[in-house]
């Protein structure tokens, strides 16, 4: 794993779990670490192996951050009672509103929205309303705006996804049909070749009769004609047979490539559509289309070479 990949995997795992500033800071730290390692003429792979799984590191970063937050909270809470409670409430309300707004703004800029983030802002909202009811209106406005933007984006994604699915389905069906037609034609030609071969064999038997009935020259002519036909038909059949086998292999390979592409495409759509909670009812229609095309065991080993598969790990 090189620096870029490592940082990317780390960031993917941290996204929506920590604030943008924190993530940027962490990225800076680990980038610096890689640079230092490179200066000691270490390979990226060596450095990332020493650092350990980015998923584990991310988990630890999140845990430590939470540990700090709870400690901070329990430490500052009694203090706020002693001091000016109202001021403390307003300040913490403002802080959480600010962080929520940043999170929201960041999310709108980002590519996908994970379901986990749904509960967290709700909890934050409750806290805000408890402590500082005055900011409730803004919260609702932000939430409403976010819902509208999210819904629009989901609809757009759904339209694009269904259009792409239909197009890909048409292309797949067309290609399969064409391949089947070609294969059928080749098999038909092979059958013709074999029949001609058999007829020529029969012709040799007939040439025996020709010798008896029409003289030896006619018989000789019939034999040589039959032999020539046998030779040509055999050559033709062998070539056709090879062609058929080659084409079949090519077709099978192409088929699996297609299956892989489908899998990847649907995986992507899944990310677009299923991740937001509102998409759950409509989502099952997506995997229904390729069921006949997508054998189950393939998806398992595809997960391994799919670079985005790591996302599920954290």
């Amino acid at each position: 794993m090189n620096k870029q990949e490592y940082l990317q995997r780390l960031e993917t795992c941290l996204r929506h779990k920590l604030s943008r500033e924190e993530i940027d800071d962490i990225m800076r730290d680990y980038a610096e670490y890689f640079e230092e390692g490179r200066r000691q003429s270490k390979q990226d792979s060596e450095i990332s192996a020493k650092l350990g799984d980015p998923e584990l590191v991310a988990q630890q970063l999140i845990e430590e951050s939470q540990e700090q937050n709870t400690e901070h909270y329990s430490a500052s809470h009694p203090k706020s009672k002693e001091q000016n409670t109202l001021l403390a409430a307003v300040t913490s309300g403002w802080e959480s509103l600010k962080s929520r707004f940043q999170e929201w703004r960041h999310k709108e800029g980002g590519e996908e929205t994970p379901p986990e983030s749904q509960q967290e802002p709700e909890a934050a909202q409750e806290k805000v309303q408890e402590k500082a009811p005055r900011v409730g209106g803004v919260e609702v406005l932000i939430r409403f705006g976010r819902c509208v933007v999210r819904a629009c984006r989901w609809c757009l994604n759904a339209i694009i996804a269904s259009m792409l699915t239909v197009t890909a389905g048409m292309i797949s069906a067309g290609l399969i049909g064409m391949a089947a037609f070609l294969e059928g034609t080749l098999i038909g030609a092979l059958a013709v070749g074999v029949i001609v071969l058999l007829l020529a064999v029969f012709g040799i038997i007939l040439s025996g009769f020709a010798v008896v009935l029409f003289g030896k020259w006619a018989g000789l002519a019939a034999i040589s004609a039959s032999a020539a036909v046998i030779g040509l038909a055999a050559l033709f059949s062998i070539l056709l047979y090879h062609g058929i086998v080659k084409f079949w292999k090519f077709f099978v390979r192409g088929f699996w490539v297609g299956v892989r592409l489908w899998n990847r495409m649907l995986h992507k759509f899944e990310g677009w559509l299923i991740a937001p909670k509102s998409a759950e009812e409509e989502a099952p229609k997506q995997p229904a289309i390729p069921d006949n095309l997508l054998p189950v065991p393939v998806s398992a080993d595809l997960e391994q070479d799919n670079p985005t598969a790591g996302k599920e790990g954290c």
Partner: protein
Amino acid sequence: MNTQFRKGVIEMCILALIERKDMYGYEIVQSIAYYTEINEGTVYPILRRLTQEEYFVTYLKESTVGPARKYYHMTEKGKGYLGSLKADWDDFSKMVNDILRGEVLE
């Protein structure tokens, strides 16, 4: 070794290292890795928490050979915390050693 326990010990080592002189991330990790096998990625999370708890302050220092390095400097609060950790550790390790050597029973 138990992860939680190990983490606590590593935390103390980090504090002890930075008490002596200001250090940057890679330097800290390598110093600890010199003594013991660690997952190098786990040092930064601890460093971040200790910084957030105001035991360290950080500053960027331009380096002649590459990008700026983030140095960690121990605060007074950090020194106090390390002092209490050290005292705890001494008591704790003495107790453990006593038990391991069977001195308590005799």
